[in-house]
């Protein structure tokens, strides 16, 4: 029996919303009853939390392995305290059949040092015309279904896919964005976008998207999660749906929680994400919605892009940012700003995503897998993008002062990262 114990750490327990000094014992890869007889490591008063469960990260296999592979994504995740990756199907080709899903699972199993689960496309080729083989894909291990940013525009197709998914108890992930209004947009409408003359979209496009999706949820009774809410305008509809008792949750990306449209400054393409960065008022509203529990999950929305895709004029540059390794220190900005407590943060980073996607982990309860993150929230550093483990280095936090470092990451009791 393999066992170890970490003593004298602040245990962050999102289930009970507590932080207490204590010890944790791991036996056979599971969290066990505290047992002082097993070999003990001194935790030196640092912080221990359930490892991050990151939903919606993109690993570029199959198709664009030069941007990110399962191997590099696993190393980056471990270094960032992410113990479970739930990957997106917007690869090339899209993961829309049991065969492509099995390929990705096999690659993940062979090369990725953290837990990996796959999401599959909702429609074939993410084209919005025919639904995928949802049942087969579930059998192959798909934990959720999404066309990512390719919004299904034909509501007839969507309603059938949602009804079918609902019957199978499948979780569907929506991207609330009206595709017509947001077409070609690279910024949020307003004075800043107009001065920089970047094609922009009103946040009303997101409200249109979420209101449509929620109406479809009400019609079909499907389990629904909105991948990214980024605007204050979207919140009333979400609150109403939750009040009605619809099976609905919502996420927010770390970038929309910690950056705003002005960060784009002089056309810095590393700040181009989808949906575009919003106003400071919207950012504050996202933080408040997270604190109140209206928004459930924080994701990295890790989207690797190579230099070629970003070294272009802002409008032409690809969207997305890598974030596996910056997720924790960026999220800790909200803790240091006294806007969210550590248990609140780890509810959104670990517990809620695990529960919503039906995955083990996200908790320090006995019998749960020992997916753990040991960190020091206070150590300051300046981020150097070239030191990231991701193959792509497109982070908006390059050169920024951050606070909080991962000391060690464990997956099922195995140490996968140590500083």
């Amino acid at each position: 029996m393999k066992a170890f114990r970490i003593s004298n750490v602040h245990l962050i327990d999102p289930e009970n919303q507590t932080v207490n000094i204590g010890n944790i014992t791991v036996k056979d890869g599971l969290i066990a009853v505290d047992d002082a007889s097993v070999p003990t490591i001194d935790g030196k008063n640092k912080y221990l939390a359930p490892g991050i469960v990151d939903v919606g990260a993109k690993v570029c296999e199959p198709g664009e392995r030069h941007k990110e592979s399962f191997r590099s994504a696993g190393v980056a995740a471990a270094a960032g305290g992410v113990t479970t990756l739930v990957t997106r199907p917007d690869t090339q080709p899209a993961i829309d059949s049991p065969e492509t899903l099995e390929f990705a699972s096999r690659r993940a199993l062979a090369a990725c040092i953290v837990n990996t689960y796959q999401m599959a496309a909702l429609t074939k080729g993410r084209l919005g015309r025919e639904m995928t083989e949802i049942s087969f894909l579930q059998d192959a291990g798909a934990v959720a279904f999404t066309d990512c940013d390719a919004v299904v525009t034909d509501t007839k197709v969507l309603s059938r896919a949602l009804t079918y998914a609902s019957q199978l108890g499948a979780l569907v992930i929506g991207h609330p964005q009206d595709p017509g209004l947001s077409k070609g947009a690279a910024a949020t409408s307003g004075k800043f976008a107009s001065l920089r003359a970047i094609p922009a979209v009103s946040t009303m496009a997101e409200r249109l998207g979420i209101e449509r999706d929620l109406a479809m949820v009400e019609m079909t009774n499907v389990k629904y999660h909105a991948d990214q809410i980024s605007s204050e305008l979207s919140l009333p509809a979400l609150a109403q749906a939750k009040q009605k008792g619809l099976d609905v949750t919502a996420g927010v990306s770390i970038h929309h929680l910690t950056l705003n449209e002005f960060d784009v400054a002089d056309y810095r393409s590393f700040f181009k994400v989808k949906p575009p960065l919003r106003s400071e008022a919207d950012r504050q509203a996202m933080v408040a919605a997270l604190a109140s529990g209206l928004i459930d999950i924080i994701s990295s929305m890790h989207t690797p892009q190579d230099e070629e895709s970003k070294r272009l004029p802002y409008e032409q540059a690809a969207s997305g940012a890598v974030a596996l390794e910056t997720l924790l220190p960026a999220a800790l900005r909200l803790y240091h700003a006294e806007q969210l407590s550590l248990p609140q943060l780890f509810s959104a980073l670990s517990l809620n995503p695990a529960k919503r996607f039906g995955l083990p982990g996200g908790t320090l309860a006995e019998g749960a897998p020992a997916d753990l993150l040991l960190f020091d929230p206070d150590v300051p550093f300046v981020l150097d993008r070239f030191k990231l483990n991701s193959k792509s280095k497109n982070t908006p936090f390059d050169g920024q002062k951050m606070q909080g470092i991962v000391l060690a990451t464990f997956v099922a009791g195995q140490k996968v990262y140590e500083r």
Partner: protein
Amino acid sequence: MQLQHLLGIEFLNPQQINEILDLADHYANKNRTASHNSNALAGCTQVNMFFENSTRTQASFEIAGKRLGASVMNMPMEASSIKKGETLVDTALTLNAMHPDLLVVRHPHSGAVDLLAQKVNCAVVNAGDGRHEHPTQALLDALTIRRSKGRLHRLNIAICGDIAHSRVARSNIILLGKMENRIRLIGPVTLMPSGISEFGAEVYHDMEEGLKDVDVVMMLRLQRERMDGSFIPSEREYYHRYGLDAGKLSYAKPDAIVMHPGPMNRGIEIDGDIADDLSRSVIQEQVEMGVAVRMAIMDILMRNRMQNNKAMNK
């Protein structure tokens, strides 16, 4: 003053604007004489990179450079490696290795010229980037206004038409605002950028109301090629409501001047009779001032560059 590049009016202060205009005024007078050539830019290599088609602006920059004695090269961007998928930054680095002194760049995307300027060692002049800025156009407009009105402050200036898609409008709003003029923006609401109420200009959707007592009427080209949706129902409805004709112009001051950055769409945004009426229209003078302003800018940038080089060699 130590200008390295001319990327936008945003980065100029009123004093710098006046200095540029003073020098341009000198060149404008000199250009009308027989001895209009000089050697201020002798030994300098000027490369014109137009990623977007342009005849007049490119010709204006070419003549300005040649009058000052620069070696001018026009890069045929249509046939270049950009078409083969090379990124703008790689193109910039390749060019930079050939040590030009001055790049004149026009690009269809906002911010592209800024990006290029970050990657090269030579001076860069923005000849128009997307819908963002067109600084030499705003400067030549300012010089034209100053010469015909005798001043460049406390004037009522109307900018009419497709404000949303116009880099000329953006640069002019910034420049004329910095020089303390009152700016009115006139056009249909679909052609106004978002957040326009925070620009420090008055917005009118009725042309007659907007033109009342203005000193300067600036018309914009209706950028049909830029529109990816339908912003106006038809050209004829646009002409009826926003085309400048004698009737609408009568609301402006009797000595108001009419400007247009060209090329004009007669019968869409401007009536042919107004455009060609030399007592009101200063459109030809704008073209003339264009060469003078570009000479002044390039002269200043090259002088600063030589000073910097000297300072570095010391």
